[in-house]
């Protein structure tokens, strides 16, 4: 073998020998570790078996169900997750999120939120000028509400009374428009003042104030149309402007001359927190449309003020709401405008009790020299959020007739979806 070959091979052999020794050492080390692991896993297995025995779990794999049926015990109705059942440990080291599957009934894909509110009113005294019943289920309101798609919500309020079934409101509300806009299309209560936008089940009295029934008829300004509102940035002040256009047809109040003769309504609302316990709410409204019969312009201008007080730490026991609204009605062809108002306060003096008073008055639009005035006292008992029993003593001084003293009683109850608390 030539020397030079040896020169090449020797280092190779030497390296191979070194590698060999290295491998042996590593193998030994691995074997030692494996043995240690084996011992450890044995110990762990023993520990698990011991724990299982302690917890009453059979160490062996589960066997076929026993034939002895006397050993059967009740299955817990709703088995909770293992995490929920494990006794709490002092250490929080292994805590991780618990994935909660939504409840089976949580889907609203097929069924909207459904609610029904019944309103039973009993009436006694006075000359019964409106032909009131001694007792009647005055209205049952069916409410349906759900998301239409990611961009809109839909709401329907259907009123059932003894005479008729009517869609009181039914609209789509677009909730994700740009530029701080929100829009509604359909039939809805016009944003005129406060009372006009309030459903009967959020009223603080059994009846509506004279100004509303005289100026707007029984149903208020409710019509089909489009409503657009915008938030106006004003620092800590909340300012919202609303512009609306309606078909212009409200029984006895507005009647359009053709399809281009619309009813327009504008509303501006400003709200401010005085403190965390109290706040002030201002509104100004203007609505104009066409009078029935004469075809002249019929317009309303209104302002409303609301003061609310609710001490946060006692919020379920005490609160006060004081509200006033003044509306002026101008009719084309009438020299004088008619003025109407109401002012009232509701004081919650215990968790389920509210006392209220209201004064109201209105000049009749067709003859403003005749005016009606009323005073009311209310006492409300709310057994829960979903029912109320209310009494109202009402004295009305009709401008062209007698003074009527009346007592009204109301029982109101709702079932179904939990609606938002009125604000």
């Amino acid at each position, binding site marked *: 073998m030539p020397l030079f070959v040896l020169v090449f091979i020797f280092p190779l052999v030497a390296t191979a020998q070194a590698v060999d020794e290295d491998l042996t050492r590593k193998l030994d080390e691995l074997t030692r570790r494996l043995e240690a692991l084996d011992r450890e896993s044995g110990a762990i297995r023993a520990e698990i078996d011991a724990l299982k025995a302690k917890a009453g779990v059979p160490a062996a794999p589960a066997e076929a169900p026993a034939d002895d049926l006397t050993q059967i015990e009740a299955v*817990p*109705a*709703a088995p*909770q997750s293992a*995490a*929920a059942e494990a*006794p*709490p440990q*002092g*250490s*929080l*080291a292994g*805590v*991780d*999120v*618990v*994935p*909660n599957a*939504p*409840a089976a*009934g*949580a889907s609203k894909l097929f069924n909207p939120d459904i609610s029904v509110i019944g309103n039973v009113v009993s009436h006694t005294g006075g000359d019964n000028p409106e032909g009131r019943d001694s007792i009647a289920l005055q209205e049952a309101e069916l409410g349906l509400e759900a998301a239409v798609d*990611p961009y809109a*919500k839909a709401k329907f309020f259907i009123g059932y009374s003894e005479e008729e079934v009517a869609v009181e409101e039914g609209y789509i*509300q677009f*909730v*994700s*428009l740009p530029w*701080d*806009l*929100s829009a509604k299309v359909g039939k809805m209560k016009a944003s005129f003042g406060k009372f006009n936008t309030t459903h009967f089940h959020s009223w603080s009295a059994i009846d509506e104030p004279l100004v509303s029934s005289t100026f707007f008829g029984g149903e208020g300004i409710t019509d089909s149309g489009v409503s657009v509102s915008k*938030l106006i940035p004003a620092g*800590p002040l*909340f300012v*919202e402007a609303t512009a609306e256009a309606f078909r212009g047809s409200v029984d006895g109040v507005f009647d359009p001359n053709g399809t281009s003769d619309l009813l327009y309504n504008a509303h501006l609302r400003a*709200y*401010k*927190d005085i403190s*965390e316990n109290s*706040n002030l*709410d201002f509104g100004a409204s203007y609505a104009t449309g066409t009078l029935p019969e004469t075809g002249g312009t019929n317009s309303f201008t209104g302002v409303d003020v609301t003061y*609310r007080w*609710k001490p*946060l*730490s*006692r*919020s*379920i*026991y005490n609160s006060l709401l004081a509200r006033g609204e003044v509306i002026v009605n101008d009719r084309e062809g009438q020299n004088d405008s008619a003025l109407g108002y109401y002012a009232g306060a509701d004081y919650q003096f215990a*968790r*389920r009790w509210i006392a209220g008073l209201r004064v109201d008055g209105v000049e009749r639009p067709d003859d403003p020299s005749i005016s009606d005035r009323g005073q009311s006292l209310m006492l409300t008992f709310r057994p*829960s*959020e*979903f029912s109320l029993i209310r009494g109202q003593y009402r004295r009305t001084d009709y401008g062209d007739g007698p003074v009527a003293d009346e007592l009204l009683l109301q029982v109101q109850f709702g*079932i179904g979806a*939990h609606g*938002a*608390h009125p*604000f």
Partner: protein
Amino acid sequence: MRRTLLLALMLVAGAFAAGAEPLKVVTTTSDLASIAKEVGGDRITVESIARGYQDPHFVEAKPSFLLLIKNAELLAVVGLELEIGWLPPLIEQSRNAKVHPGSDGYLDLSTGVEIVDKPTSAVDRSMGDIHAMGNPHYWVEPGNAIRIAIQFRDRLAKLRPADEGYFTARLNDFKVRANDANKRWTAALAPYKRAKIVTYHRSWQNFVKRYQLEVIDYVEPKPGVPPSPSHLFDLVQEMKSKGVKVLLVEPYFDLKTPNSVAEKTGAKVIVMYPSVGGAPGLDDYFTLFDRNIKALAEGLK
């Protein structure tokens, strides 16, 4: 020490980072706000709608809250219908599609915590203000506080991927501190294991499970239903026969009824604060628990 160093480093690194505006977080309750702050640090601003001394079921849907939600990038809620009476109209009118349910900007923390009192039969309102998906007062338990924090970390990291490391470091720090604190709290209540207590509302179900106390009855005959004379009569008899020493009352309930029950039974009324900010000085989750556990342990002595 290493953790502190790491945090300091991250803070410095953060200062040099893109200088992004803090993420605007709005929570429905003060406890969620406190835990969000633990995770989010100075990379978020957080405001709570409800105050700690207020019954969270009965918050008013004020337009000023609407303005808060309008500007929020993340709206975090307790869920389980706790806020059903006031939050939906606020979200609806907020003009902020980012925080509608189902969006990344809406976080319902009940989806990742341990929930108790899940109804085992069909529920209806004859049972009072029952929560059909389980008890919503789940935050009064440090294990769930960590679960809330983990969910905040995950969501904040999704909204601000650049700060994920920062949020994770803060989460880990919170976990360690909560674990340490819980050892202290567990030790303080250890002598009173299985002690029988009465609470006003079902606000402490997760709490008593963690610390192994036994609630034998409630001042409310059914959730959300004010106490009736006949229920109070039964309650007094039961408390006497079982030797109940303490009666826990949330700060927003009237003390008149609990005091009269206490007088007749010799039990002690303890005002327990379910939420951060329930009283001056209860500024975060830790001070809240320190105070509650101390008061409870003294009452059970």
